[in-house]
């Protein structure tokens, strides 16, 4: 191989082949699937994300949640995701059409979050958990996100949003811990994560 041209053509050809196979064809084949309107309930699936949840999606990206939490449920032949209750069916391409960037993830230092809004639907739990994960999940190695909350002096009426903290986390008397807009958006996003609706290519029964 002493000819630069042969080398160049070969390098170009192998690369283009892989690009066509792993990028172009997938894009044409399932990169343009649209949402699905359920005949039974008339719902649009997957349900569109609310504005606040969309903002929470950005917080999820900025804080790097994706490095420890996946958002994909594998089928019965690959792992015990279904038996663990992380979903009622495997997730499919259509589940993610509204997400930019995708948060499929590759690591489960923490549990899968595909259906966390369904599995843990309490706003209060999520705030307590973000403030200090070990307060509700003893032994967790998740870092606290206290910087998403502000400690402030109660002036007049206590805030309706204030976290109900006790024990170690309780603020000094006369003070309260309130979530920042980022924390509220993140919790709204987490609560929106529910991929348990049936799709034609992924039935739930």
């Amino acid at each position, binding site marked *: 191989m002493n000819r630069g041209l042969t080398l160049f053509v070969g390098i170009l050809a192998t*690369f283009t082949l892989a*690009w066509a196979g792993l*990028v172009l064809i997938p894009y044409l084949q399932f990169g343009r699937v649209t949402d699905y309107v359920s005949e039974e309930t008339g719902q649009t699936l997957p349900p569109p994300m609310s504005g606040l949840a969309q903002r929470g999606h950005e917080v999820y990206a900025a804080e790097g949640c994706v490095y420890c939490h996946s958002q994909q449920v594998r089928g019965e032949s690959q792992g015990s995701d279904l038996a663990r209750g992380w979903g009622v069916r495997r997730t499919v*391409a259509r589940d993610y059409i509204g*997400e930019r960037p*995708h948060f499929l993830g590759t690591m489960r230092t923490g549990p899968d979050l595909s259906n966390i809004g369904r599995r843990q639907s309490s706003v209060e739990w999520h705030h307590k958990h973000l403030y200090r994960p070990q307060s509700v999940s003893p032994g967790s*190695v998740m*870092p606290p996100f206290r*910087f998403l909350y502000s400690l402030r002096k109660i002036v007049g009426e206590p805030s309706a949003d204030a976290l109900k903290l006790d024990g170690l986390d309780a603020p000094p008397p006369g003070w309260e811990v309130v979530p920042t807009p980022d924390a509220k958006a993140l919790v709204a996003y987490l609560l929106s994560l529910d991929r348990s609706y049936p799709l034609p290519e992924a039935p739930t029964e």
Partner: protein
Amino acid sequence: MTSPSSSSSPKGPKAALADALDRAAIDASCRLPVLLFFGSAIAWLLVGSVFALLAAIKLTTPEFLADHAWLTFGRVRPAHLNAVAYGWSSTAAIGVAIWLMARLCRVPLRHARILVAAAVLWNLGVAIGVTAILAGASNAIEWLEFPTYAAFILFVSYAFIAVWAVLMFRERRPGHVYVSQWYIFGAFFWFPWLYSVVNSMLVFWPVQGSVQAIINWWFGHNVLGLWFTPIALASTYYMIPKILGKPIHSYYLSILGFWSLALFYSWNGGHHLLGGPIPAWLQSASIVASVMMLIPVITTAINFHMTMRGSFALLRTSPALRFTVFGAMCYTVVSAQGSSMALRSLNKLTHFTHYTIGHAHLGMYAFFTMTMFGAMYYITPRLVRWEWPSAFLIKAHFWLASTGILLMVVSLTLGGLIQGIELENPKVPFLTIVAHTIPWLHARSWSGALLTTGHLAFALSFVLILLRTGKQREGPTLFTKERSFP
């Protein structure tokens, strides 16, 4: 078939001296750009090691430095990845590739200013990108966290380098094109294509849904397979025969290894998404390509092994050879492991666990980084015209790096297997599994401390040789004194 670019013995002392003078001219022309790339690479290696240590400690001690948004785990971990992938690995790879190109094209490096501009831009891009990640402006797409502005700077810098490579290759002295040049040539084309295509489809004009994931991992794996691996193999293909003074075992194996790598490595990306929301055929195609990777790996391993046969004793003396051969052996191990991990039956245990992290470090550190260390130990004295001042520092670096990476890979592999087996059993509560991984993660933090100490020794060595400290040595700096080494 070929006439090797032999230089020394057959043509008598006069020709040998002329060749040495040619080489001296080539090395002198490379001095500024290559040392600039090496120096900045080592600086990023230290930065990346600090982020790595922080992230490792945070995984066992979640309250450690937890109140600073800039230092939360989810930002420090991508900062580590990007600092070592783009700051250390890419920069070191470019430096090594420039020198190999000049040597193998047998012409002094021209257009050095393009390279100096590229080096400055590259470092600027990485610095802006890493800062942006810490500030919370990450794209949160693994391997592509740099926001648009940083990615654009890197792309411009890389375009400079690719243009330079084409110019350089055209100006080469006519003659045989050696296997290292194929790999470098390939890498210099593949990476900018890859980087621009993927950035435009994921960051600038993102496509929808899980197609993003397949493109993401097509990039994530190609950056290893079509950028870091070819440069490290080019270096190995150069260093082993060069230091031993023997021809590489088989030209045919070189050809088979190169083209099968080009053909199969670029299809591997889908194996990061097994069981995930991408169609079955894509997963199966990537599994097949991953298993077929055995062909280039076995081929290359035979080629290196047969060349080394009879000369293994030199590993005791030559630092450059020892680092390079360590890397080459780990290439075989990590690739065989990678092929096995792509099989569905094993992947369901190892996917989403620390086992994969162990595999990634076996590839990027034990193979790629060790090979780069070897190349730098060979190249730098020629550029500086000074021998390494301290054999002790090189020795310390080798043993800290090799035991450190061994400890890391063993602990993450075993810890990851336990994690994977327990995750398979839905009766084991998740927090119990977390508790069972912690001792292994502690071991990983310690291995990180060993590696970081090794990097400090290497950085110190590098500063000392740049300053030309110590006595001028007659011969090379070697591990052992008793054996005479040419």
